[in-house]
């Protein structure tokens, strides 16, 4: 019993995802086409494409920085969240939370500056900064998600003879998933744009044309880096937002 509004909502959702994905891919891989667009947008600039590296390589670096930092943050954040939720971890919960909070208050740029003496330039300082920044939201969403599961469902699961493990995997985790995925989505969106910081520490990425454009007063370079970064962030946001299915599935 899916109403037409639901179906229209789902259709619109996937149309949006497809368009954003296609636009991002077009800018990344069709250098000639994208050059035309940039020329149109910034007509009085002679060089519109950043010469050092093609956009496809920059995009690859951007995605690598985003994915590496997000994957590490996910593993660490989920682990810390589960520890905070476990019986053994309950006493440390406040401690874990405040450490996560603290990590978020330090500006990413400062973190990079602090770790460069240890790691040198390259991908590591960016990834470390983004990871530290992302752990808290993931952890909070894991804890909030698991705790939002109705006590009645948990009681019923226990009462019907599920082991704690079965109960966690088949009831608590699936019910917490929307909240956890919300955190993952926010992290990815933030990290996609924050990874442009990589340019500052020679880690590459879409920040490079932006930085160059800033130094050389070339708005076209800035747009070349910023536009695909924006559409990529929007693409991820749309992709991971549940379609509007209000009359079907408000749990």
């Amino acid at each position, binding site marked *: 019993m899916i109403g037409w509004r639901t179906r229209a909502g789902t259709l619109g959702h996937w149309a949006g995802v497809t368009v954003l994905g296609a636009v991002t891919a077009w800018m990344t891989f069709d250098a000639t086409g994208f050059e035309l667009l940039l020329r149109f947008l910034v007509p009085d600039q002679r060089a519109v494409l950043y010469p050092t590296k093609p956009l496809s390589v920059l995009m690859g670096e951007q995605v690598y920085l985003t994915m590496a930092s997000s994957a590490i943050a996910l593993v660490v954040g989920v682990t810390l969240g589960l520890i905070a939720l476990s019986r053994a971890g309950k006493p440390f919960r406040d401690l874990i939370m405040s450490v996560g909070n603290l990590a978020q208050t330090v500006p990413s740029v400062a973190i990079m500056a602090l770790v460069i003496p240890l790691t040198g330039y390259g991908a590591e300082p960016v990834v470390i900064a983004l990871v530290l920044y992302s752990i808290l939201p993931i952890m909070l969403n894991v804890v909030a998600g698991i705790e939002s599961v*109705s006590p*009645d*469902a948990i*009681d*019923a699961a226990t009462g*019907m*003879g599920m082991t704690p493990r079965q109960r966690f995997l088949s009831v608590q985790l699936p019910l917490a998933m929307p909240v956890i995925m919300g955190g993952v989505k926010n992290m990815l969106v933030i990290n996609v744009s924050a990874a442009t910081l990589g340019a500052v520490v020679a880690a590459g990425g879409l920040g490079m044309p932006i930085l160059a454009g800033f130094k050389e007063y070339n708005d076209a370079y800035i747009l070349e880096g910023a536009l695909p970064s924006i559409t990529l962030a929007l693409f991820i946001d749309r992709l991971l937002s549940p379609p509007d299915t209000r009359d079907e*599935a408000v749990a």
Partner: protein
Amino acid sequence: MIEIADLTKRYGSFTAVDSVSLTVEQGQFTVLLGPSGSGKTTVLRMINRMVEPTSGRVLLNGVDTATMRPESLRRTMGYVIQNTGLFPNMTIRRNVATVPRLLGWDRRRIEERVSEMLDLVGLDPDTYASKYPHQLSGGEAQRVGVARALAADPPVLLMDEPFGAVDPLTRERLQLEMKRLHAKLRKTIVFVTHDIDEAVLLADRIALLREGHLEQYAAPEKLWIEPASEFVKGFFGENLGLRIMARHCLSSVPFKPLDPSVSCAAAPHVEDSVTLKEALAELVGAKATKLIVCHEGAPRGVVDFETLVKALGDGSAPA
């Protein structure tokens, strides 16, 4: 058979359940009744070890449940709670299949069993199996809760105020269906409620709790005729006799012999399928002193006020 012996639960210095002993026979419908906070839920949850007793024992068919693995114990006891506790992430089919899946039944058998259970509680499997819990009304969700509890055919059913959150009309329907299910399946049922009408309607025996103590454990008729304390008498109040009349069918009463000349159409009459309470209401409503009892239009005997009250007098009238 469930034997509860000297069961006690303390939380710190507070005693929630104080040395309760009672036996629930095979196939018996026992209701735990009492005011809020009297320890009903705690007793129930000590039966399936959701709460571990401070002292005392629960024996299931002679075996101390403390020696069993809690998960295995619980899989032999259906469990129904007030807010259904249906899993919102699963279809009705998956919900009902929970315990059979835990027990590792094969898919065909589970699928058949799910349909059978939904039919049993009056829900069409084709319509309901693929729905999600949020698409159901309160009454439907509660039926699914019962179907889920019965799915693995457990000999015991534990129910904690299962109909507490539905509207009065639906509740009455569910109560009657519960009575029908019990008559049909003869499960051993322990049912918690604080609704006196519900308790008297459903119970073979009522265990009345008060501040953790068991005040009396007896059939409703016995509670009426021989209340063990002033508290028991006061708790059930003046209406207990009338409530008990609603438990019994007129056909179970010894009628007075019939004057052969009367017919069912001529005088005030009732069908023999009604309850004693309904017969009494009919008697008063017709401003009559006696009624002709009919069975599908054929006169079978006469009842008057005396017959109706005497039927309860010795507490022996079968439910």
